[in-house]
């Protein structure tokens, strides 16, 4: 796709945005969030937009359709799509373009599909509405596209409802929908962020394949540079609505010039030194735990697992592997069907309500989404102070002193933060507050449930470093639930790989990460995007499902190995 630079230069670009300025509304006032960005996109070219949250990448992606979200407005610059000035175009004219010549693929396919209609009905809507195809021709085309996107049973899958297919399939069905009118331009807004790595690689391959087959231009938005490097010919690095650096994918990844780009490339480089195997009795011993939700099938099947003192055990697996359920069992939210938990030599009561306050204090949890884990109507003083009152009976000045110490421990300036509400904090700061709240209880074990997955990469890295420092200082143990191998490499002592409610491999970090792997571990590890150009093509070729191949992805209905 990176070929043809010279011929492209002679043709008029498909899309040019010059001096693009966009304002967003906050507290009934308008602030500029995109400060004069220039974008040029040629036919058949894939442009990657990368940056942290708040960089303005989604806003710019939508502006390419002449659209601004509610609460945003286009205030300056020209947007010219194939000779048409989009900002000046009437609403009717814009509507004719959207869906037909410019299409959009959203981050969450589950939220973007109407759950009350079948996939193929939603596919046919745009081509029939734009009078590109008849209904029957559109359905035939849908079946063809479903096949090209390597969806299972392409002839019939369209006649299912959104909830009847998996997340990765739904995302591919949305790509098919975007292709329905054979648009000149597709805007992909983080299309694989919500997916597991093993699913992500399939969706990426499918997207890359159809975009190449139909020579469609695309804007690919992501916060993950490794993913963008696989998809894009050219990359723009954005920050706070400004352009940091622009260049070919190769030059950005291999020869970054700006400091910020270099930092993005260097994320997750810190490593915890390998720990000595310890002989002492583990802090938590999970013995033969099996569990299920109400009348559903078993989600956990005889799990045996030890967590040592001052150790970090990473639990890895795809969604549905039961790793979060295991956390619920340990906290007592879901009493297990069989098995028992031995904490510090004593058996823990299965149900939360039967555990004494002291044992509740010693096991704390940090949630995935700091946004929903903090009560929006409580100041930090109260959030962090409540466990102090509740467990240790601290009140008044003593309590405030302790809250300030805790804030300092999580590297937040006490004077600036103690009276803030969660709404006045950034994502990383919120997660630090959650850590401070967990520390307030002075626990022995902290369960970290995907604590960095909602954070930008640079912020996530700093939070991981903080957690590591706290472990060194305080000697807590972590049960670290994640699907992200970069995190696992950085922080774990031991790794437990879970698949469909069972442990498929467990051991010290280096044992698990070094070959030979268990087949499933190998699949997981090889699906993690690497910061190398051409990684995707090479990986797919190695698995024998390269572009154009009709082969299905690996069969994952049964546990491998």
């Amino acid at each position, binding site marked *: 796709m990176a070929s043809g630079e010279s011929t492209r230069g002679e043709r008029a670009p498909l899309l040019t945005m010059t001096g693009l300025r966009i304002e967003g509304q906050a507290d009934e006032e308008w602030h500029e969030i995109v400060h004069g960005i220039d974008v040029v996109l040629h036919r058949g070219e894939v442009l990657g937009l990368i940056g942290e949250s708040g960089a303005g990448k989604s806003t710019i992606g939508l502006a390419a359709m002449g659209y601004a979200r*509610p609460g945003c407005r286009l205030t300056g610059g020209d947007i010219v799509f194939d000779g048409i000035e989009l900002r000046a175009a009437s609403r009717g004219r814009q509507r004719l373009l959207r869906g037909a010549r410019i299409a959009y693929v959203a981050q969450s396919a589950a939220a973007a599909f109407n759950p009350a209609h079948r996939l193929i009905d939603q596919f046919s809507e745009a081509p029939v509405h734009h009078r590109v195809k008849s209904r029957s021709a559109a359905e035939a085309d849908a079946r063809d596209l479903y096949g090209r996107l390597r969806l299972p049973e392409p002839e019939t899958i369209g006649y299912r409802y959104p909830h009847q297919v998996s997340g990765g399939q739904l995302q591919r069905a949305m790509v098919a929908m975007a292709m329905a009118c054979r648009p000149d331009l597709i805007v992909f807004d983080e299309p694989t962020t919500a997916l597991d790595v093993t699913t992500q690689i399939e969706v990426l391959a499918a997207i890359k394949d159809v975009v190449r087959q139909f020579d469609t231009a695309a804007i690919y938005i992501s916060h993950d540079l490794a993913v963008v490097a696989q998809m894009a010919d050219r990359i723009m690095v954005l920050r706070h609505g400004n352009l940091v650096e622009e260049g070919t994918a190769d030059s950005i990844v291999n020869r970054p010039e700006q400091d910020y780009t270099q930092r993005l490339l260097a994320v997750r480089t810190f490593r915890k030194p390998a720990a000595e195997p310890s002989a002492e009795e583990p802090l938590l011993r999970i013995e033969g735990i099996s569990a299920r939700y109400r009348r559903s099938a078993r989600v956990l099947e005889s799990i045996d697992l030890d967590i040592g003192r001052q150790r970090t055990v990473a639990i890895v697996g795809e969604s549905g592997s039961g790793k979060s359920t295991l956390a619920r069992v340990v906290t007592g*939210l879901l009493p297990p069907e069989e098995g028992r938990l031995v904490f510090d030599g004593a058996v823990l009561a299965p149900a939360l309500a039967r555990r004494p306050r002291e044992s509740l204090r010693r096991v704390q949890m940090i949630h995935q989404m700091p946004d929903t884990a903090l009560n929006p109507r409580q100041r930090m003083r109260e959030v962090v102070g409540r466990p102090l009152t509740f467990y240790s009976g601290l009140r008044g000045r003593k309590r405030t002193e302790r809250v300030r110490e805790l804030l300092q421990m999580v590297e937040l300036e006490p004077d600036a933060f103690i009276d803030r509400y969660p709404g006045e904090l950034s994502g990383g700061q919120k997660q630090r507050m959650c850590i401070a709240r967990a520390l307030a209880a002075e626990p022995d074990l902290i369960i970290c449930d995907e604590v960095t997955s909602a954070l930008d990469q640079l912020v996530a890295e700093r939070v991981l470093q903080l957690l590591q420092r706290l472990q060194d200082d305080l000697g807590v143990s972590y049960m670290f639930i994640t699907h992200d191998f970069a995190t696992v490499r950085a922080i774990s002592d031991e790794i437990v790989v879970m698949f469909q409610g069972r442990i498929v491999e467990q051991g010290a970090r280096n044992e698990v990460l070094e070959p030979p792997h268990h087949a499933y571990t190998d699949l997981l590890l090889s699906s993690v995007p690497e910061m190398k150009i051409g990684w995707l093509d090479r990986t797919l070729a190695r698995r024998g499902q390269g572009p154009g191949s009709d082969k299905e992805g690996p069969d994952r209905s049964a546990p491998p190995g």
Partner: protein
Amino acid sequence: MRDALSLLRKSPWSARFGLFIVFAYVFMAVFGPLLTPYGESEIVGFEYEPWGPEFLLGTDNLGRDMLTRLIYGARNTIGIAFITTVLAFLIGCVAGFLAAVLGGWTEQAISRFNDILMAIPQLIFALLILTIVGTSVPVLVVVIAVLDSTRVYRLARAVAMNIVVMDYVEVARLRGEGLWWIMRSEVLPNALPPLVAEFGLRFCFVFLLLSALSFLGLGIQPPTADWGSMVRDNATLITFGDFTPILPAASIALLTIGVNFIVDWLLHKTSGLKDG
């Protein structure tokens, strides 16, 4: 205080109008006795005297000053309606939050009982009970509050259901917090915006129900002044082309509109809806 002022400065004209009306009514209710020379049920002239300098809005069917009765009526009707609404919210919110936090069997029991109460038409149910137990003010307040709390329960439960699934409630549960703390500190503050808006609307409905009951003779009893019964007592005047009996009805309408303007504004603010 400064926040409130700046909020007021940004408010639309409709909300200001609503606030003005409500404050005027509250002022009348509080300072009623100082605003008028006559007593609440004092007979000061002949029946149905026309408007004039002595009796600004004339007299009613027994020769009592109409304006005085209107002012006292504000006092009684608004006061009773307010207490009733507060009581309804107390019952409805506690039951709703309990149902949402505890779930399971408790929720089923409360919800089905609530359904039974809601299945019977409110006005007829109120008439029935008041006929049986009599029509003193405390009984009136309790009966209407219980009947109205069914609607509050529905809303409080629905709002709280969305809150109890949040991680911060799970954090509180994991900490071992009791039921009362979860309801008061985790659920209530986050459920407040829609509940406050609903409070305004409920207040209007209670107030209308109260007036309707009074009009039917089962509400606030004479000689206590009340807008609903004032409409009924003076209704005959309408046939003579005198619109004085419309005035208490208009007072009811005006207050309802005022409260609704404020509620709309609050809802708009808390829901984060933007124009256009």
